């Protein structure tokens, strides 16, 4: 668990001012700033307000409640806001880690008066959520992120302190989801009215059945069986948050990661986009997917520092450019980017098909060493559990000898974890141990 303490000088508010309502988002005061992060006028207030409301809804949602966990855990986890050079992003995670939501506001969505690059948590109370529903298209709405934007005098007593015990897996999910997004391919796209019809047609209640969604002409069709070009969808109730927004969007763009079954559902509003990324199964958090593990397991970390130095809150990170500026080999840059994404320092933007820089406002230094699969793999490797018999490796683990073999589709292992998950959730600890062993041999 990570004990996250949010300090807000005031609650976020939608305040009436003489120029119209002003959305004043209180930023976490763990980060000291001379000025606020952002002061801007919202150009499409109904879309932005409803999208922020959707973020708040996802952050407060738990689509899967393990019997041993209390629903109240994480109910106070707050979204993260990143102000970049040409985009403002709000992102959040459901408490169960199976749904990730992000609103990307391009410059065309905001009339920016003042901005300062950085990332912060923003306070999103239930009162604010209610107030956002009152915003309409003809509302003149301001948006500010920071402490001083609120005119109410604040003193020490007024500071809001929220202590939230964030499970490591929740924070890890923020990093891991970016890898799932980076591996996505386009599924299909629906125009506004069809998107609305599709979302309205989804079952109302909780639905964990696997269905397949395919674009068929101007409509999307749900099928219980896999059909040509269809994307998998389990837990379709998670998409309901998009329904009130679909009528305002130009299109609903769907992407899929065929390897993991994760899907992205993006409402495109032109100058802003709302991304809802769902893991393949509602009871499976992104945190456990392990898509980054092979990259992290490799010993060559030489590129990380050099690449990190070049990030500079860029909204679009071009690997080719990094190769030029750092003079590192392309594969070293790629590994470094994966490593940085795993550390929560990069997000992935499907619209631009590129990483963007943001630093998660959590103490993530502990996470990297605490991945249980990676830890177990290191232990196996250090114990010398990997033995090579020709092309195959044998890994001795708890008196059982697992055989790890290379096939056309990647590594295979005889452990139950691999038997259950296949390649969907990254390598098992035995494969990782073998990769570490190979890596060491190469060195």
């Amino acid at each position, binding site marked *: 668990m990570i004990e996250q303490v949010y300090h807000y000088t005031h609650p976020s508010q939608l305040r009436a001012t003489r120029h119209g309502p002003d959305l004043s988002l209180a930023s976490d005061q763990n980060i000291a700033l001379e000025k606020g992060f952002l002061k801007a006028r919202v150009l499409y207030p109904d879309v932005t307000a409803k999208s922020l409301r959707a973020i708040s*809804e996802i952050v407060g949602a738990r689509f899967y409640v393990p019997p041993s966990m209390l*629903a109240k855990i994480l109910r106070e986890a707050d979204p993260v806001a990143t102000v970049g050079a040409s985009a403002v992003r709000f992102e959040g995670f459901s408490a169960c880690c199976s749904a990730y939501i992000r609103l990307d506001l391009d410059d065309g969505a905001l009339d920016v008066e003042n901005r300062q690059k950085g990332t912060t948590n923003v306070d999103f109370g*239930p009162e604010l*959520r*209610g107030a956002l*529903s*009152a915003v*309409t298209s*003809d509302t003149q709405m301001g948006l500010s992120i920071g402490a001083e934007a609120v005119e109410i005098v604040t003193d020490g007593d007024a500071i809001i302190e929220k202590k939230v015990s964030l499970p490591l897996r929740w924070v890890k999910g923020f990093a891991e989801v970016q890898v799932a997004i980076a591996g996505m391919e386009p599924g299909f796209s629906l*125009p*506004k*009215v*069809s998107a*609305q*019809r599709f979302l*309205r*047609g989804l*079952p109302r*209640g909780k*639905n*964990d*059945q696997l*269905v397949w969604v*395919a674009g*068929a*002409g*101007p*409509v999307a*069709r*749900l*099928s*219980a*069986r*896999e*059909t*040509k*070009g269809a994307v998998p969808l389990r837990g379709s109730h998670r998409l309901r948050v998009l329904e*009130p927004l679909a*009528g305002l969007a130009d299109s609903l763009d769907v992407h899929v990661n065929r390897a993991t079954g994760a899907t992205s559902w993006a409402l495109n509003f032109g100058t802003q986009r709302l991304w809802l990324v769902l893991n393949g199964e509602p009871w499976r958090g992104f945190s456990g997917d392990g898509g980054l593990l092979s990259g992290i397991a490799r010993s060559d970390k030489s590129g990380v520092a050099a690449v990190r130095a070049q990030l500079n809150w860029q909204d679009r990170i071009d690997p080719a450019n990094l190769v030029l500026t750092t003079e590192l080999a392309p594969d070293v840059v790629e590994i470094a980017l994966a490593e940085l994404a795993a550390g929560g320092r990069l997000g992935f933007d499907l619209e631009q098909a590129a990483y963007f820089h943001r630093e998660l406002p959590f103490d993530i230094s502990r996470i990297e060493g605490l991945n249980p699969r990676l830890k177990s793999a290191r232990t196996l490797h250090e114990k010398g559990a990997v033995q090579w018999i020709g092309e195959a490796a*044998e890994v001795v683990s*708890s*008196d*059982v*000898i*697992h*055989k790890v*073999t290379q096939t056309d589709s990647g590594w*295979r292992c*005889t*452990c*139950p974890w691999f*038997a*259950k998950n*296949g390649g969907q959730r990254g390598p098992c600890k035995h494969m990782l141990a073998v990769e570490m062993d190979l890596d060491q041999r190469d060195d």
Partner: protein
Amino acid sequence: MTEDEFLALITSRSAKDVFERLANLSAKERRAFAKPAMTLFKKLDRFWINAESLPDPKVKDGEAVTIAVLATASGSELRKLSFFPRPGKVGLVEIVRALEPDWTQDVVDHFVEDRVFYVDQFRPLWEAGLCKRPESDAIILAYYSRWVGGLAKSDESRLLGGDVWRFFEVEGGGEDSLANHDKYLKRGQAGWAERLKQYADAGKLDRQRLLDASLDALQRDFGQYRAGWYSRFHVLMAPDAGEMAVRADRYLRLLASSVPPTVSFSMKHVQVLDKAGAVDAAQMLTALEPALQARAKGTVSAALKLVLNAVKRQPNLRERAARMAVLALISEDSGVQGKALDAIESLGADGVRRELAEYVDLVAPSVRARIAALADVGAVALPDMVLEHEATTSRPVVPVGSEQEALALFLTVLEAPRDPFEVERAIDGVSRFGAALQADDKALSPLLKRAKQVSASPGDSQLRFVLALTGRALAERVELGTLLKKESGDRSDFRFVSELSLQEAHLARNVAVLDRVSKGLSLPLLALPSETSGLVRVADLLSRLAAFRDAGVEPDLQDLAFALMRLDPEGRDVGELPLETQADRAVAYVLGQNVKTGPSADLWGAAWCARLPREADARVAELFAKPTPDCGVPAAMELEVNREVSRDGAYSWIDVEVPAIPHNEIKSRALPAVFGISNERFNNATCCGYTFIDIAWASLTRPADPEPFFRIGLIHQDTWQKLSDNHTRAYLEPFFRPGPPVGPLGAGVLAYYMACEDKSVSSLAVEATAVLCNEGRLSVDTFVVALKKFLMSHSLPTTRWTKALKGVADMGAGAFARDVIVGVLDFAPEETPRDIGGLLEVCFELHLGEGSKLTNPAAIACLTSIPGGGKTARFSKKLLGLTQ
């Protein structure tokens, strides 16, 4: 005091004595005994809760130990306990007052936040001034959790002093909410809504603030069920015209609520305000946007009326109003779409042609031409709705090619055996590569560990248990029979799987497979399907039998029985066959030769099922003690659907039976041919199992003749049951494989399952129907016969088939759905199913969509005489208008 003396004190003296002694010690002195006190307390707790052995030393008075814990533990130690240890013999107030622990506030806050019932337990503490009352939501939830009639005076003053306003902020959940409180009152009891109104009427609470607070609560996105209390309370308060007028913007804002009943609540108030002219027309128009896109037809219709009213009051809003009316076209209901077009026509469509064009492909056929004309677009090109399924043509099932592959596959199916073809490939892999795997010392170690774990806790699936036992025998290098003997404690009556389950036959087959493996033999599984239809090709079976013959091994009769029942009806003309063994004769018999039958009843029952044409054969029948269905005597099975009513007439339910004639009276436990055709009570549906995995495997038993399997599917279904992984979906699996035309019982499964409450089942049945229809495997006539049995039993709502057949049409089988509805329109007026209007509407829209006429004389006669008004009469008339 030493630790021993302390332990002696708390184990030998009464709670009161212990309390008095410890109260005389300082906090520091007491704290030194925290560890032994807590250790003993936990031991006692395990004894009380888990019935573990009595702690040593024995304890005279358990509450003495509880007091010792309270006297010695720190706040964090107490918080770690899953409950607060509260003695009954000494009051908590007395304890806290005497001991003055430093944890009081901390512990009270923690436990009150944890569970509401602690509010009552700790209330005496804050009433005595020993701590502050926690101000968490739990305090408010405590009000919800008790009947309002039992409210104490002191609570009432706190309630009226401020707590009441938090009722409108604290939603509650689970059992503790205002909605739940007022729902489960006994007759004559007043709820919180009435109580608050009484307070307002008596001037104890501010009426205006209550009205505002209830609207505030509705704005808070509470869950639908709990939000309902606040709208009902607001209605109970009966705001007058003036009170409503000052809150006009609040009602308008609530039209955007995500809770449909809240939207209709606010719509009613807005309608009243509109009538009184107490709401600004432009403001109302803006606020109506979400209501125009609501799912509830009534809400949209009301919103459309308000749109027109707004223009009447402010004509310059006409174009904006037309744009708003277009939004209502998103409704799936053709009636609402028609009303939206009416509104657009009256407002003028000139400014909204582009918006209208977006809906042309998506509206009902009855309004499509009209919207196309308004949008000024050309001929409407209907979208191609047919789903492109993975080809249902048969693909070969490829056996595993190496021992590594065999092991990997077995490990995979051991974790998730949902695909029966993979299970059969895995057993075939064991049969062919098991001996080689056993020769490798290391290879089987992962299987050994995992199979042991799974066999210890296999879950509900019998198949998984069978696989785990098979895996264990393979990895432990023992015969499966020996392992079973050991596991059963050598009891002959011990059952590893349910009585009459097909898994018992599966287990028996695997015993033979492992027996061969233990002898170092590598032979194929006879019953491995050759292709994804589930059929075993004749040539494949003969070549597998030849391998057995070459190895000098007699085929296992269970394996052969399964193989015969999976035998392809095609390619059976193979000429002369060897007739040396019973297995040879059974194969020859199935392939049409006249041979000597017997002696194994199990095998010959299967052989009779596989022989074509299926004709009674006395020689096979006499192998069984009594006439047995599908064992020499064809089983006659007919679907019967009835509506059963409880004695008092209060409840009714659907009763689906498929009696088989002749009655099965045999007690054979592993006879797959009989396929659970049992008339013994409780045994009707057991043969296929109770999980998706088991049923899916059973679906491969008779792929060329799946009617007995569908019989079980009809008996097994519970139409009201909703499950997260509904196992009955597996009964629909054969429809998605290449197979024979759907028979009467298969059609019955489709008709029944599409009306299930569980959407995961009904949507799959709808899809199966559309797929089968598009493949030409399901005839309208067969389906109509089955559907009529359900429809005319009046035991399930007709609306379920209305939705289902619309779904079938949406998946590209519109003509089929239309013809099915026409086909069922053949009943006497007094037998008319309730709510048939929806079905007629779908039929009408489909006729328009397909551009067809109604020509069926029986349907025309039925529609002419059909009673009832409303939608039924309207669409009867419309359909009759399509006869020319």
